[in-house]
């Protein structure tokens, strides 16, 4: 056993013998996470033990034992990428699946308080019954919104109307790295309407832009911001869960569009107008290459070999999907008029309107709960994300163009999969000029050249970001030690300051950081 027997026994006393194991076969099932980095020694760790606390008090008791014996640990909610996995062989993984309650849904104040293993789908379903919606991420409805708002970036296709999850947490309950139970913000009075105060914002010390990915204590309750929702209250997926067979009744006040631009500058113009008019509930640019490679790889591979078809696909590579929801008939009419006008002004092809065929129904359903994306990227390890932070829309577009240039070079050199170069997952946040760009590359973890391409792409994108000053570090942080060393001296010594924050709150570094 990789942790002291005495420690194991003490933890067992806290959580019960049925909720701790060091069985190697079970531990192995918690080791299969690959995301953003190829290094097996970093990502494919078998934890020393698995612990499943059932309450905040048990979490606190466990963390105190870890402090006593200097045992490393990592919190794991529903799990998605390597950030939820053990980062060393002597690390205990804290599986929070027993803490799975929606503690409160406050319709009046648009707040839901959840435990770590509550899934996005559960919250969304409950919120819909109250005319509200939660900001779920593209990780899918099976993933934990608590993990997203407390510990990761939280990008999503609803960013235009709901922001990203780095800004979607109100108060929370947190077990500190020394095992204290801390009610952050107004949570101390068992109300969850604000994260900040009294005085300075302690919340911002423990949850920065990207979150610590389980390396800063353990969050046990979090208040999610909910948003107004005038859409459907449910939909069912029969049989084998194929979304395209979904029995979706989409209300008449919802419209779905695909807006296709051939030129970047036209897309940029449209995005500024969509932000100004605040018409979108969901919107995002999807790359036709990524979609094609992911959904129908064999067809896509053949299609790219035919020059005419290749050019035709290229013409449609800047494809933005838009869902609008009318709060009233007049609101819907106005939004439809705006979308049509914006498409016209930006030389776009606009397809869509009423959600009256299976494709549009599936798309809308998919955007609302991200079922489709979860099935598309059902195992982290199938794609990688590079580039920078959110900035002005036109800066994020420049990021996307540069990433495309880099990838086209790699495709031409036969270094990576051919997806026509553009992998931009691009959108707007908070009905404003703030853009969001993720430079996506599909990878195949079974192929060495694919993993190597991922790192090359990440590092080359980072270099462009640093030398051309295209916004902050953002997703470049996934590039590992090399990007940290590139950016730290030219980005306010952010890494040095991060280690200082970590050192003050978790001096023994028991909850390991992931992306370094």
């Amino acid at each position, binding site marked *: 056993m990789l942790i002291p027997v005495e420690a194991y026994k003490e933890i067992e006393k806290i959580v019960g013998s049925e909720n701790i194991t060091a069985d190697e076969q079970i531990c192995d099932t918690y080791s299969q996470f690959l995301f953003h980095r190829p290094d097996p020694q970093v990502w494919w760790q078998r934890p020393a033990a698995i612990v499943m606390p059932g309450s905040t008090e048990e979490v606190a008791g466990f963390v105190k034992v870890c402090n006593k014996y200097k045992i490393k640990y990592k919190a794991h909610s529903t799990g998605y990428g390597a950030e939820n996995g053990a980062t060393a062989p002597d690390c205990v993984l804290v599986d929070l699946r027993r803490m799975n309650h929606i503690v409160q849904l406050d319709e*009046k*104040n*648009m707040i839901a308080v959840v435990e770590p293993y509550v899934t996005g789908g559960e919250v969304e379903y409950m919120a819909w019954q109250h005319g509200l919606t939660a900001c779920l991420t593209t990780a899918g409805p099976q993933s934990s919104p608590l993990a997203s708002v407390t510990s990761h970036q939280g990008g999503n296709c609803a960013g235009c109307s709901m*922001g990203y999850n780095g*800004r*979607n947490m*109100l108060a929370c309950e947190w077990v*500190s790295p*020394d095992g204290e139970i*801390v009610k952050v913000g107004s949570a*101390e009075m068992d*109300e969850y*309407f*604000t994260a900040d*105060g*009294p*005085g*300075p*914002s*302690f919340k*911002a*010390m423990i*949850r*920065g*832009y*990207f979150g*610590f990915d389980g390396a800063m204590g353990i969050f046990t309750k979090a208040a999610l*911001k909910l948003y*107004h929702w005038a859409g459907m209250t449910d939909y069912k997926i029969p049989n084998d869960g194929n979304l395209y067979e979904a029995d979706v009744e989409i209300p008449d006040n919802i419209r779905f569009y695909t807006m296709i631009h051939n030129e970047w500058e036209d897309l940029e113009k449209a995005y500024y*107008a969509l932000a*100004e*008019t605040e018409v979108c509930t969901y919107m995002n640019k999807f790359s036709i290459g990524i979609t094609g490679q992911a959904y129908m790889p064999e067809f896509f591979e053949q299609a790219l070999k035919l020059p005419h078809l290749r050019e035709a696909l290229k013409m449609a590579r800047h494809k933005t999907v838009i869902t609008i929801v009318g709060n*009233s008939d*007049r*609101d819907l009419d*106005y939004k439809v008029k705006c979308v049509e006008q*914006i498409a016209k002004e930006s030389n776009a092809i606009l397809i869509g309107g009423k959600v009256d065929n299976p494709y549009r129904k599936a798309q809308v359903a998919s955007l609302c709960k991200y079922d489709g994306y979860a099935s598309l990227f059902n195992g982290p390890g199938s794609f990688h994300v590079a580039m920078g*932070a*959110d*900035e*002005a*829309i*036109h*800066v994020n577009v420049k990021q996307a163009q540069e990433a495309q240039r880099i990838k086209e070079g790699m495709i031409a050199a036969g270094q990576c999969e051919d997806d026509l170069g553009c992998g931009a997952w691009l959108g707007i946040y*908070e009905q*404003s*000029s703030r853009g969001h760009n993720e430079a996506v590359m599909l990878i195949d973890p079974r192929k060495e050249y694919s993993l190597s391409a991922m790192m090359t792409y990440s590092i080359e994108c980072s270099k462009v*970001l640093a030398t051309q*000053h295209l*916004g*902050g*570090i953002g997703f470049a942080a996934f590039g590992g030690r090399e990007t940290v060393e590139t*950016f730290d001296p*030219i*980005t*306010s010594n*952010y890494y040095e300051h991060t280690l200082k*924050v970590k050192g*003050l*709150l978790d001096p023994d570094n028991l909850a390991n950081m992931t992306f370094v």
Partner: protein
Amino acid sequence: MSNIDAYLKALCEDTGLEIETDAKALKKTIAKNYSRSEAVVPAAVIYPVTVEQVEAALKAANEYEVPVTVRSSAGNASLTGTSLPWKEGSVVINLSKMNKIMHIDELNCMAIVEAGVTFEQLNKELKKHGLYMEHPLQAKAEKSVIAALLDRDPVLTAKHLWDVPDPLCAMKMVFGNGRLFGSGSAAGPGTLEEMLEAGCAMNQSQGPVWLDLGRVMTGAQGTLAICCWASVKVKKIGTCKKMAYVQSDDINVLGAYASQVIRRRLGEEAVLLNRKGMSRIFGLDEKNTDEMPKWTYITSVRGYNYFPEEYMENQYADMEDLAAAAGLTVSAELTGLDNEKAFAVLAGTSKKNDFWKLREGNDIVDLFCLNTLDVVDKFSVLAEKVVEKCGLDPKELIVYVQPSQMARNCHIEFLIEAGDKAAETEKLLGTVLLDNNAFFSRPYGVMEEAIYNKYKAQRHFMPAIKAFFDEKGILNPGKLASGYAGGAL
């Protein structure tokens, strides 16, 4: 040579900073202390004009262990006492001469301002670009934009307040220990000039990566770092506008209505006021307010570039439908109030030396907390009882409710001119509200200790936060002392 003399000598030699040491002038700097916090005459006031000078002043303060208090706004009035020194031998770093509007970005609706830029100054400049800055209710004309927003003073448009510290974004700051840091977009990579040249809007408030230190320093009352410049979100003025008024005697009904309106992103600036608040803020005479329902929800509607009239009328009609469902009525006019004036009040700052919270010669009680719209009724009833018990007329109590973060919470402010009963009333009202779960997210003055005694959870970590920014404790010593005193780390 005392520490302070050595400090000033070093600064003079190294930086050429403007330094005020004249006793008469120094005395004046604390002459308008409207708080009930004590203040001492500073040993000197220094006026930096560059980030480098602020950095040098704080590095030297650490070296010579000189306490420093920061002031950003013009003038010498202080409502909370935060910007006045409390410890003998303090130096005031006065940022009012760092007052450049560094950049206005029409496309991205952003402005970058130095710490001394005031609301009046910024809005005057923005107007030339068809823009305006959303600000606190009738903000003091001479108030620093950055100081107000760092203090988490709520601005008037809840639907644009997605999260703290909106509308504040990136910040260039100097920690108490003298280290320079950029929060959000201000971190780089590259200089501000390089980033602007590349087209950056500097509109990211969080980061880099694991950090969000700009937000940490909000509500810190100048005890952690000094913000030298920051980017702020601004809005388009629009091409047409309209006012909407909804009134009720029942704040529960009106508050719920406000929440429904704001969550649908209807209207722009929006506030809830009681009768006395309407009279004070909008200058209505008491004959008009006496005949009004007890509470008024006031909001503006604007139209922009795309189908402006249609957008505006749709918004208004949607508000009417929601009102009808709640048994309320929306009016486009209010008796005794000119709409242009109402719009100007919502969109504008106070006139110089005529701030709505201050009346010369009158000692005021001004208490505010952050809670939810559904407790306004309970708190208001309690507040009326307290002021009556203290021998004051409850009709004179101003209640101002500012929905925030899309109405998920709200700022609730109680203000009354209390003369010689001010101290007693403030203490009693503060205690009663605290006992009833008022969340004083920004603790000031006499209530500070009681607030930190009730909300203890974060005190464990407060010294760690202070140590991160300002290990020698030179920034604003004495302020938030109860908070910083409670830690165990």
